[in-house]
């Protein structure tokens, strides 16, 4: 199992969470897990879409109403 990294994007609107996610993922190695904490629904559209397009595994937990944790497993 790789390491787990939390990325806090609470209160941040598009495109900030996506840019932060891209940068954070660059620093990780294959098998690592990035957990992006967001509360803007727009980021729920572009962050998972982008990560899947890049070939990573994505799963999301709704931690509260309008608050999510996006789990991205770096796959390549």
């Amino acid at each position, binding site marked *: 199992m790789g390491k787990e990294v939390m990325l806090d994007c609470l209160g941040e609107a*598009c495109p900030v969470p996506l840019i932060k996610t891209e940068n954070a993922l660059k620093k990780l190695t294959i098998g690592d897990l990035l957990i992006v904490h967001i509360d803007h629904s*727009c980021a729920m*559209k*572009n962050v998972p*879409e982008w990560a899947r397009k890049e070939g990573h595994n*994505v*799963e*999301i937990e709704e931690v509260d109403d309008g608050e999510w944790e996006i789990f991205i497993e770096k796959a390549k």
Partner: protein
Amino acid sequence: MEKKVEKYDVIIIGGGAAGLTAGIYCGRARLKTLLIEKSLVGGLATYTNEIENYPGFPEGSTGLGLMELFHKQAKKFNVDFKLTDVKSVNLEGDVKTVETFRNKFEAKAVIVATGGKPRLTGAKGEEAFLYDKGISFCATCDAAANTGKTVLVVGSGDAAIEEGMFLTKFADKVIVSVLHDTGKMDCNEIAKAEALANPKMEFIWNSVAHEFFGEERLHTVVLKNLKTDQLIPVKVDSCFLFIGYLPNTDIFKGVLDMNKGGYLLTNEKMETNIEGIFACGDVRDKFLKQVATAVGDGAIAGYSAEKYIAESELFHNQIMQCDKPGIVYVWNAIDPKCREFLPLIEKYEAAYDGKVRITKVDIYKSAGIASRLGVSQVPSIVKIKDGKIEKIIRENICEEELAAAIEE
């Protein structure tokens, strides 16, 4: 890593208006229901800033706001939600399986409500700038980031023009690339008149996207005039594509029947070609794709799934049971000939109580069980022994035949 297996009555794939409505119906019918959505619950409707034609909301609603209410209602009926994408499905047989990255789910019925995804132009360079690099499909998501900027909208349908107008609240200039001749658009007349009068909107007629250019980010879209072949470079900060949708049916290819465009074929009960698999919403081959029609589809699919599961249970536990011989009377309540035999069947039911299991199946209510038994003609009598069909009597139904069948 071994995947965890979880069992459900119904799995709904897709959390847009159709999937959520199916969820509300299944949940309310007390079926153990799981809805799998790949990202944000609400589907494509959440990409729309304003929905004015969904009945019950005379003041209009945002797409996201309306879908949040659908979501809340489905949760109220105990629908479970899983936010991830489906990797593979196995839809044949009585137990259907749906696999995600971490889990394997089993269900008696599956409702496909996977909807559509935005279509791309296919122009050169497009792939390199998707989502984060300048090409977007969601005005409500990315409008604020374009405050004071110049954006290009490709398309002239309702989505393109309405979202384009929404973008003018933020951007300095919204250039619209329209496929048609000057003044012709695919959108409704109200939107068209408003757009033409909007001082921030500019139109490039007879044009399509030809090539996308940029460094890290998109900075120029080259349009091509279809009549003159003239290339028109347009400097932009972002480009929004609203040129229709493609169905999300890749994982069902070769399994579920679909039309040339990849949309799923269903009957009016939302049944697909596989028993226990239903489809609803934008993913279906249908005439009008709207939240209002998705809701109707979803209600039917949810109801059909409920009936299918009830029928399966009756079929396996009561009709195809192994503990004693069974007689199934397949009839139609509105057929006089069928009604004639009813007293006879009921007489035998009483006489053989405890020794033979007699079941009456009324095809007027549903033809599902009859078709599982391979019976299309009524009245018919099916004899079941050791959980298998032993004999089907279609002609000469009379006391002697019935007695002989039971005595055998």
